[in-house]
C-alpha cells in the first residue's frame, strides 16, 4: 500500500472516531461557525471538543510546520485530509483570519521569534485576529493610508482610523498597516504592526450594512502604544507583506459560495413552478443554465490553477482572475436566487423566509466584488501583469 493510501486510511479512521456527530453537517451561517479567541462562547461542547481534537494534531492548519503547532502535512496529504473531511461532511473546526490571512504571511516574512510567539495561538484558536488595512476615503487606493505610527524609541505611538475591519469588535488582536515614514514614496513608508485590541486607546464602532447586519467596524486608534517587538519584518516594507497577504485573501473570497450545497437549478426545481419536469419559466431555465455553465467552468479553473501551482509555479496573478470571476458569479447566483424565489425571496423579517435569508445573502454578496480588492482593481492587475497592456 502506498504511503498516501495508508495516510488516507488512518485519517479516515481518526476522523470517524473523533469528529462528533453534530459537527458533521454544514454550518447554518457565520454565527454558527467556530471563530475561537479569548472571549468566544462555544455553541456546544461538541464544537469545543472538535476544535481541541483537530488543533491537537495541528489539523486546523494542516500544512503549517509542526514546529509552530501545524500539521506538517505535504500538499497531497492535506488534500486527502480535506477529501476525507468532506466525505463525512465534517465542519471546518476553526474559522480564522489568523489562518487564512496573517499566518501565511508570518510564515514567509516574520522572524523566528515572532513565529514562535504568534503561530501556535492561531493554530489553537486562542487568539482571534482582525485586519486593519482600509481607511476612510482610501477605497481601492489602499496604499494612500494615513494612520501614523511615530517611532518613540521602544514603541510606536499609533494614531488614526481604520474602516471595514471585519469583526473588530470581537477580535483579540489586529494586524495593521501604518505609515512610519511620511517622506518616503507612497508604497515605501508603510509598516506592518501587530497589537492587542485591548490596548489603551483602541476603540471600535460597528458599521450597519444594507443587509441589516454589522460584520464590519470602524476602528479608532488614539495614542496607542505598540512595542517595537510587534513590528513584522522591517519598517517600510509593510506594503510587500500586505500584498502577499492580499493574494491569500483574494483566494479566500473567490471561493466564497463555491461550497454551495445545492445548485441554483436544484433550488429552482424545488421552489418554482415546473411543467413536465422542466422549470415553467423557460427564460429562467436559460439563465440558470448560463450561470451553471460558467460556474462549472469556474470550479474547473480553481482546480486547474491549484494543479498548475502544484506542478510548479505560484498562484500569482491567477488569483486576480479567480477573485474577479468568482465574486461576479456569486453575485449573479444571488440575483438568480431572487428570480427563483420571486417576491417570497424579498421578505426581510418573519419565519417564512428565515428572517430574510435569501434577501440578506443577496445584499451581502454585493460586497464580494469590493472587499479584498474591487473587480476593477483585479481587471487592472490582469491587464497589466498578465496581458502586459501599457499604463497611460
Amino acid at each position, binding site marked *: 500500500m502506498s504511503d498516501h493510501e495508508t495516510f488516507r486510511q488512518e485519517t479516515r479512521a481518526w476522523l470517524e472516531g473523533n469528529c462528533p456527530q453534530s459537527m458533521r453537517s454544514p454550518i447554518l451561517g457565520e454565527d454558527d461557525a467556530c471563530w475561537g479567541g479569548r472571549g468566544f462562547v462555544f455553541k456546544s461542547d461538541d464544537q469545543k471538543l472538535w476544535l481541541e481534537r483537530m488543533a491537537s494534531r495541528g489539523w486546523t492548519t494542516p500544512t503549517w510546520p509542526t514546529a509552530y503547532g501545524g500539521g506538517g502535512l505535504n500538499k497531497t496529504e492535506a488534500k486527502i485530509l480535506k477529501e476525507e473531511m468532506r466525505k463525512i461532511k465534517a465542519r471546518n473546526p476553526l474559522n480564522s483570519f489568523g489562518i487564512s490571512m496573517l499566518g501565511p504571511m508570518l510564515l514567509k516574512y516574520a522572524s523566528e521569534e515572532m513565529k514562535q510567539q504568534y503561530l501556535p495561538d492561531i493554530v489553537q484558536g486562542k487568539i482571534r485576529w482582525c485586519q486593519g488595512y*482600509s481607511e476612510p476615503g*482610501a*477605497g*481601492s*487606493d489602499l496604499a*494612500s493610508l494615513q494612520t501614523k505610527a511615530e517611532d518613540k524609541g521602544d514603541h510606536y505611538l499609533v494614531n488614526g482610523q481604520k*474602516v*471595514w475591519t471585519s469583526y473588530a469588535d470581537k477580535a483579540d488582536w489586529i494586524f495593521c498597516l501604518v505609515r512610519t515614514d511620511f517622506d518616503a514614496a507612497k508604497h515605501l513608508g508603510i509598516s506592518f504592526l501587530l497589537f492587542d485590541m485591548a490596548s489603551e486607546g483602541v476603540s471600535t464602532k460597528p*458599521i*450597519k*450594512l*444594507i443587509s*441589516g447586519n454589522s460584520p464590519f467596524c470602524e476602528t479608532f486608534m488614539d495614542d496607542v502604544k505598540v512595542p517595537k517587538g510587534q513590528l513584522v519584518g522591517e519598517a517600510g516594507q509593510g506594503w510587500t507583506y500586505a500584498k502577499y497577504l492580499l493574494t491569500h485573501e483574494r483566494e479566500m473570497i473567490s471561493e466564497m459560495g463555491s461550497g454551495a450545497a445545492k445548485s441554483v437549478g436544484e433550488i429552482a426545481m424545488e*421552489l*418554482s*413552478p415546473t411543467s413536465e419536469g422542466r422549470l415553467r*419559466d*423557460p*427564460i*429562467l431555465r436559460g*439563465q440558470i443554465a448560463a450561470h451553471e455553465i460558467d460556474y462549472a467552468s469556474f470550479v474547473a479553473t480553481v482546480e486547474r490553477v491549484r494543479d498548475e501551482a502544484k506542478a510548479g509555479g505560484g498562484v500569482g496573478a491567477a488569483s486576480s482572475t479567480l477573485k474577479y470571476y468568482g465574486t461576479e458569479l456569486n*453575485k449573479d447566483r444571488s*440575483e438568480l436566487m*431572487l*428570480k427563483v*424565489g*420571486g*417576491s*417570497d*425571496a*424579498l*421578505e*426581510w*423579517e*418573519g419565519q*417564512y423566509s428565515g428572517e*430574510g435569508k435569501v*434577501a440578506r445573502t443577496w*445584499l451581502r454578496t*454585493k*460586497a464580494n*466584488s*469590493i*472587499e479584498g480588492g*474591487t*473587480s*476593477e482593481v483585479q*481587471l487592472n492587475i490582469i491587464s497589466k501583469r498578465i496581458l502586459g497592456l501599457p499604463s497611460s
Partner: protein
Amino acid sequence: MALVLNEEQQLLKDSAAGFLAEKATVEHLRALRDSRSETGYDADVWAETAEMGFTAMVVDEAYGGVGFGMVGAGVVAEEMGKNLSASPWFASSVVAADLINSMASDTQKEALLGPIVEGSNIVTLAVDEGGHHDPEGISARAEKTDGGYKLYGLKSFVPDAHVATQYLVVARTSGSAGDKSGLTVFLLDRGTQGLIVDQSIMADSRNWGRLTMEGVAVTSDAIIGSVDDAFTPLDKTLDKARVVIAAELLGISRACFADTMEYLKDRKQFGVAIGTFQALQHRAAHLFSDIELAHSSIIKALQAADADSPALATLASVAKAKACQVAELATNEAVQMFGGIGMTDECNVGFYMKRARIAQALYGDYNFHAGRYADLRGF
C-alpha cells in the same frame, strides 16, 4: 402623439417633484423604518398628496378625477421612484382606482371613487398568491351560497394590505388554476368575518401583507364587473399598473444614477476623481443610454394606455421588461461604483436597490414580460 410631455404634464411633473422632494424622501422612509412605524407612511403627507390632486390621476372627471390619465400617473410615479416616497398612492390611487373606474357599475363608482380620491379610503388589489405573478394561475375560490359567495384562499404580496380599508380580491368562481375564464373581482371590507390580514416586512421597508380568507361571506353586491369574466379587464388594469410601476423603476434608476455620477465626480482615488477612469465612464455612458431607452418605452406605453390602444399589452411588457433590466443594472452599478460606502445602510443606494427588486417583482418581472412579449408577438 409626440413622445414628449405637454405643458400641463410638465407642470404636474414639477409640482410632484417639488412636493415629494420636500415631504416624502428616502430620509422620510428611513425614519419610518427606524421607528418601526405601524402605518408605514405619514398620514399628514398622505392627506396633502390627496389635496394636491395626485390621487385623482386616473379617475374619470365625473367621479372627482382630474383627467391626467396614465401619463399623469406615470409622471408622478417617476418622481415617487426618485424619492422612494412611502404612501399607498400606487396601490389605491392608481391600481384600485383604475380597476374600479374601468370595471365597476356607476353606483359602485359613485360610492367608491370619491373616498379614494380624497385619500380617506385605501383600497388595494389582491391578485398574487405565490412568489411569482400569475393572474391566470389564481386558485383562491369563491363558492356560491344562498345570499352570495364564500371566499377561501390565500393572497400574498398585497401592497398596503394592513393599512387598507377595502380589498379588491380576485377569486375563482369557476374553472381551475391556469384558466383565463372563471375569475371574478370581489370587494371586501376590512374586518369582514373570516378575513385575516397579516403584515409582511419586506426588503423595501414599505407596506406589504398577506390575506387569508377562511370562508369570507359576501353578498353579490360585492362583485365588481361580471362574474367569471374578470380576466380581460383585470389584465388591462394590470397592464397600466405595470407601466406605472415601470415609471417608478425609471425614477429609481435615474435617482440612483444621478447619485452615482455625483459620487464619480467627487470621489478621489489614486489622486484623481474616479470619474476620470474610462472603464467607469463607458459603463456609465452605456447605463445612461439604457435609462433613456427605458424612458422612451414607458412614455410610449403610457400614451397607449390613455389612447386605449390595442398595442397596450405588448408595449406594457416592453416597458416593464426594459425598466426591470435597467433598474437592476443601475442599482448594481451604483453599489459597485460607490464601493464600500454603497454597502452601508447610511448610503441611499441600498434603499434604491431593495425597492427596485420589489418593484421589479410586482406584476411580473423581466422574465414574465419577456415571455409574455414573445407570446404576444407569436414566437
